[in-house]
């Protein structure tokens, strides 16, 4: 991990902080009723998306889940465009026609958040096949949840990726809940996805998803292996989400102080802050400056999103086809 110099560490912090503040703000704004539809918040899981995506560049593709804001930000999708998209505005990343669950930026290799659980893995097999065939040196990463790890598409994709030796990685973000159902029940043998990889002859690695450094190191190895033709890996990040499956979910299925305890003892941003400040790599003032920069960006993006126009009426009918 020698490439984690001060600059990279501050960049990691800024990415995680941006995701956290973006989600916390969407949580607040959604409650006012101004944001249409559904949102699914990634707060609490930042170390996973950031630790993985920091290794990637524009050659690489990722596919996300319905809980996609964190992956979008980690992959470099523009924050203001994302906020405008969540508000459904014309200035949004997808011109207001996709919304929270379908934010995508193909120029940045972000193949989309996905409203279909398990929708991503087959697409990522394809992206990886394209990069292998066209010899771009790129790789592809599918993020799925513990719930998505039960979908048939995931199993088929694990098999296909192995037999075709595709340059891809399946990152299972296991937060213990598939909607309101415990993954300890729904994922056979107590919710561990890692062991499933063994069945396909694929290496499976588990890391603590609250620990940026653990995720970064393991993901780095998997990505390098894929880039060099070594084939796919399953990386399971065990972590926690702070908010419900969707905004509006009262989360009564969780023990009362569960989220509070996690925020107090295992928050990935706090753990990161403590580590880099105690190691002397950064000052508290450096991090606070980043905090302020991020808050300003989020505030501006909300103000601008609210003020932005709706798409014009004729946009209802455009972009169905390239040509018809």
């Amino acid at each position, binding site marked *: 991990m020698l490439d984690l110099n001060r600059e990279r560490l501050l960049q990691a912090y800024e990415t995680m902080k941006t995701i956290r503040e973006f989600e916390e703000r969407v949580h607040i704004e959604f409650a006012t009723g101004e944001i249409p539809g559904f949102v699914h918040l990634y707060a609490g899981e930042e170390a996973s998306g950031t630790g993985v995506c920091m290794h990637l560049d524009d050659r690489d*593709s990722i*596919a996300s889940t319905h809980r996609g804001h964190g992956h979008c930000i980690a992959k470099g999708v523009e924050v203001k465009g994302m906020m405008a998209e969540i508000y459904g505005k014309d200035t*949004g*990343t*997808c*011109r*207001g*026609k*996709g919304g929270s669950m*379908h934010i*995508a*930026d*193909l*120029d940045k290799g972000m*193949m*989309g958040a*996905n*409203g*279909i659980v398990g*929708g991503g*893995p*087959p*697409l*990522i*097999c*394809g*992206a990886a*096949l*394209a*990069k292998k*065939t*066209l010899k*771009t040196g790129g790789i*592809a990463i599918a993020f799925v949840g513990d719930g998505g790890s039960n979908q*048939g*598409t995931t199993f*088929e*994709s694990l*098999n*296909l990726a192995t*037999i*075709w030796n595709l340059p891809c990685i399946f990152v299972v973000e296991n937060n213990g809940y598939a909607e309101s159902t415990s993954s300890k029940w729904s994922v056979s043998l107590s919710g561990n996805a890692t062991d499933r990889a063994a069945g396909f002859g694929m290496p499976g690695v588990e890391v603590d998803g609250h620990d940026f450094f653990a995720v970064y190191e393991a993901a780095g190895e998997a990505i390098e292996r894929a880039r060099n033709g070594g084939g796919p890996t399953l990386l399971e990040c065990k972590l926690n989400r702070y908010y419900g499956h969707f905004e509006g979910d009262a989360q009564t299925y969780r023990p009362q102080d569960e989220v509070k305890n996690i925020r107090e003892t295992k928050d990935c941003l706090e753990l990161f802050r403590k580590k880099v400040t105690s190691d002397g790599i950064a000052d508290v003032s450096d991090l606070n400056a980043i905090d302020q920069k991020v808050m300003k960006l989020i505030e501006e993006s909300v103000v601008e999103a609210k003020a932005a126009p709706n798409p014009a009426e004729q946009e209802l009918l*455009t*972009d*169905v*086809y*390239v*040509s*018809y």
Partner: protein
Amino acid sequence: MARRATFQKAINEALEQEMERDSSVIIMGEDVAGGTYTEGDSDAWGGPLGVTQGLYTKFGDRVMDTPISESAFIGAAIGAATCGLRPVAELMFIDFMGVCFDQIFNQAAKFRYMFGGKAETPVVIRTMIGAGFRAAAQHSQGLYPIFTHIPGLKVAVPSNPYDAKGLLIQSIRDNDPVIFCEHKMLYDMEGDLPEEPFSIPFGEANFIREGDDVTIVAIGRMVQMASEAGDALAQDGIQCEIVDPRTTSPLDEDSILESVEKTGRLVIVDESGPRCGMAADIASLVATQAFDDLKAPIQTVTPPHTPVPFNDFLEDLYIPDTERVVKAVRNIVKGN
């Protein structure tokens, strides 16, 4: 004399010529080569009916056998299409769409719209349709209306070798996702087939026959039934205009409406079923937009609302035949 070849050859040739022209075109599907990793021949099958045979020998790794994992490999073809390849994936039988439909209708069809116009998904899914093979209920359906219903997909249903080649070449060159339907009973059909590559635009119907008395819109294999009916009715002085839409999405609405404006009478013969099928769709189009041109009620000739039976006698009853088309015409047109 023009060169003659089969519908099957037309498809094979279209694939071969496009793969020669464009190195980003790849083929994948179950047994599209056949024999992968076995100790016998590779290129053993070329698809279950041999349609893609020879392509693996010529193009090697660009022709990929897949495991029986439709949602994974159809999804992979779609994902690869967004990342610079132009895959032609084979969904062996349209009846199997159930196991991969999400990737087609929720992913491929919607990327461009959901992502604000930034995605292009130039994937072709070739698939076998149609009854008559005694293949029974799960291998004989004509489910193209379901794909036609989905905005973002294009659907082609060629009725002869010439259209098959031209439309498949167009499908591969097209930058939208295309469902290319090949009727399994048409593979052995012979017809004129130019050797050089050529393309046929989508949304352009073919007028098989011209006439003033009645418009018969026929799709896929039913074009043959309509043609034979046209010949029989001509003996009786009834001149049929036979319109083959060739693609159901986009549909050449203008040609259909112009023909009905001329003839005032419409018979639609289609092998997809009576509920929410192409006959219902086209009947609705004409009834709403050309009501004043109609001199008689619209006639539809379709199978019954049942699964396809196995027994050969029953299956033959299921499939609309020439006699039923003739009868439908006679319901609304008097002969000599």
